[in-house]
């Protein structure tokens, strides 16, 4: 045996002997480090953790985690994970995927996994570019983006991943970023805690093909102005001096300055359980270059309780077993038999 499991595990126990092969400076390193830090704190035996990935830079992830893992095929990690979770509900199943993998080639499986609500954790590394195939635009790339496959600018309108998840009736929808390790760790913990399909979008910098895509949100100079960190039961506040906030004007979110006669009591109070407000929140997706734009929210947008597919499946089986014994001879024999002497 490698080691006894009585000693508390550390991040090191989750590292493998495989050389990590992402480009130097890739945002994936930070995500890997935070996942390795968080995993030992979850109280889940290492052998019960399975990481399933598709294809893309992010999908190399399982090779670097000393758990069970499968590097599957492009877009299908969600479907592989669905079959695994359906048949082995006791396992902790994590899906590591990218914007191309889960929103383009595998978009169909992603939405169906969400509506079925398997109790799995989806970590969507969104870098808004195809890295592994060396720089084509992705389904989350902004319009007019010039890439190798769009020399005159992309004419594709991008997905808003969290709005898509809400549309597919996800029961946990959250966003974080590679450059904020503390927030990333906190979101990983919440993702794991949620019972049901958890959808965590992680803004991840691809320093080779799309460097700085999220720098407005991640750089110290602009982060406070441009981001809004959601906290349950707290007003939506942001700004360098925490002096701004969002309020709802009818169905429209509006920025207000707290020093202009508004108090914190006027602000929108965040409620993760409110599906209507969550849909407005995920729709806050303005281009930071746009005049009068709203700050980009991070944190848990929405969480709901809904029965998980694998649980209900197991209940149906238990119920069927209780009503009818598994008698193979009876099955093979059937009801209409004749005998030849």
């Amino acid at each position: 045996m490698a080691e006894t499991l009585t000693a508390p595990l550390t991040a090191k126990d989750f590292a493998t002997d495989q050389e990590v092969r992402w480009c130097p400076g890739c945002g994936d390193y930070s995500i890997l480090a935070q996942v390795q830090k968080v995993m030992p704190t979850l109280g889940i035996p290492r052998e019960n953790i399975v990481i399933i990935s598709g294809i893309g830079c992010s999908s190399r992830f399982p090779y670097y985690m000393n758990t069970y893992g499968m590097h599957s095929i492009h877009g299908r990690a969600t479907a592989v994970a669905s079959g695994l979770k359906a048949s082995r509900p006791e396992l902790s199943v994590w899906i590591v995927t990218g914007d191309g993998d889960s929103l383009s080639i595998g978009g169909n499986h992603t939405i169906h996994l969400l509506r079925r609500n398997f109790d799995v954790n989806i970590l969507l590394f969104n870098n808004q570019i195809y890295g592994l195939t060396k720089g084509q635009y992705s389904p989350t790339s902004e319009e007019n983006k010039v890439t190798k496959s769009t020399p005159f600018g992309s004419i594709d309108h991008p997905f808003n991943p969290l709005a898509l998840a809400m549309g597919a009736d996800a029961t946990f929808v959250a966003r974080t970023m590679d450059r904020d390790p503390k927030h990333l760790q906190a979101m990983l913990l919440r993702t794991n805690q949620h019972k049901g399909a958890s959808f965590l979008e992680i803004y991840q910098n691809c320093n080779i093909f799309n460097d700085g895509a999220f720098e407005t949100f991640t750089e110290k100079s602009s982060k406070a102005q441009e981001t809004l960190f959601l906290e349950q039961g707290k007003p939506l506040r942001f700004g360098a001096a925490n002096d701004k906030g969002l309020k709802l004007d009818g169905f429209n979110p509006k920025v207000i300055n707290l020093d202009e006669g508004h108090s914190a009591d006027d602000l929108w109070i965040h409620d993760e359980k409110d599906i209507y407000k969550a849909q407005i929140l995920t729709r806050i997706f303005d281009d930071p270059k746009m005049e009068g734009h709203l700050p980009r929210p991070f944190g848990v947008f929405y969480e709901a309780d809904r029965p998980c597919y694998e649980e209900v499946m197991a209940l149906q089986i238990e119920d069927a077993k209780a009503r009818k014994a598994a008698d193979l001879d009876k099955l093979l024999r059937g009801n209409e038999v004749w005998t030849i002497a």
Partner: protein
Amino acid sequence: MIRKQEVLNDVVIKFAGDSGDGMQLTGTQFTNNTALLGIDLSTFPDFPAEIRAPLGTLPGVSGFQLRFSSDRVYTPGDACDVLVAMNAAALKVNLTAIKKGGKIIVNTDGFDSKNLRLANYPEGENPLENDSLSNYEVIKMDVTKMTREALKEFSMGMKEKDRAKNMFVLGFLYWMYGRDMDNTLTFLKDKFGKKQDIFDSNVKVLQAGYNYGDTTEAFGTTYKVEKAKMQAGSYRSMMGNQAISYGLIAASQKSGLPLFLGSYPITPASDILHELARHKNFGVRTFQAEDEIAAITSAIGAAYGGSLGVTTTSGPGMALKAEAMGLAVMLEIPLIIIDVQRGGPSTGLPTKTEQSDLLQAYYGRNGECPMPVVSASTPADCFDAVYEAVRISVQHMTPVIFLSDGYIANGAEPWKFPKAEDLPPIHLKFKTELGDGEEKLQPYLRDEKLARPWAIPGTPGLEHRIGGLEKQNVTGNISYEPENHQLMVKIRQEKVDKIANYIAEQKIDNGPEKGKILVLGWGSTYGAIKSAVAELLAQGHPVAHAHLRHVRPFPKNLGDIIKNYDKVLIPEINNGQLIKIIRDVYFVDAKGYNKIMGIPITKTELVEVIKEML
């Protein structure tokens, strides 16, 4: 009235009507009734392409052919002795399939001017009123009128009443063949027991049909077919898709692996999903996936977790699953891919049969991607064949393709069902701990079969990663080494080839071990070849029949068998697929007989083909 009873040896009946006329149900009931008497039989339902084509039209005709005999039968028959035609379209579509002198039982109400027009008969022409049917014995009955008459006391609407028409025909045939009706009464009770009105009306019409035969003087003779001389034992009627489902459940029970089916509905495979979904008491998990790709990849996920992973589909779905099959080959993980073939390419002929996915099963994937292929030859054979596919898959750690087709899927035959305890065991062992001197799991360390260990999540100390990238032998680490790739390609091929050491040798099904012609078949051509060769052997011709279950790898002795005959004939319902592989592997100048019409090869045509070669 005293009537003559004539004893017949072999009868083929075809029930034909609108797809809403209940002909499949009528056929199935008559089949079960026949089976319960120990008469051998074979059936072939002929579904229309459309779910509900316009009433009365040619594309809307649904048929069910049943052959029963006091001898063993292996096909549903080339031509009919009796055709039941519920309307003009049903007659027109099936007229060429009736033997000269055969009986045609027609519902005259289905030959009114509207029905004749819908069936494209020229204005003013009614086949019942001219001499176009003079070669046949036509029995005219106004089924609609007599059904309504029987139900005149019932309060239901006319449309509802007319739905019982098929029961009148069934009752009449029960009379004609001297049957009792107990099985159908039980069936109706189970189906409509809670709706007393519907139950009563069906029974009333069934009896009315029987009594009509019994009391009408026009019908002088009833017929009887004696029990067939079959092997002693207990039998039931079995259809192909049902047999696949039962074979999978049995394999799951005997191997101890929970069964997981990932499937997307597709004709003609959907009935396997339907059947397995009913048997949750055996711990069966059925997952109706969002598409064909999710169907197979979910099954791969389940297999990775230690289930018996299965996916079911037909040709178009096979094409969609190809990439995932490649993953299963790289993962070297057990998985059963069931292809119930139909006419192609593309959407092709969804309700018609074909054997045209063999080359796809052999070669239809990117890279060097060998997989074992097992095929079923008759409906009941599906049980044993799929059981064998599971054994190969789990013992050799490889995905296996199982080929059936539309003809087998929906056909039925008597099945001498096994006892659970008599089924061969399926031995397998998960790896549960590291061996002596092992520091960590070597996921691609191989045994004498070249199979790698199956270590499932949840096993402490065996954490490991696998994936679709080329991997180093033994360690499973990603490897781009040129020599390693060559080694791994060769190993994956050798692993499949080695299965030949673990399967039964090929047998001659019928005929001499050496001779003039070997008819070599696979899949659903079994019955036609069997019957044709039997007929020629009876005439003294040196002809033999061998039928493959294992299409990849071939049984070790197949080459030797082929050498024992002057000529080899390979009949297939495709444009020549097995023949390409046989020629490639054994350098034999085999001849093909290829029918690509969406319908089975008949015994009669095959006899002619073989005779020409003699």
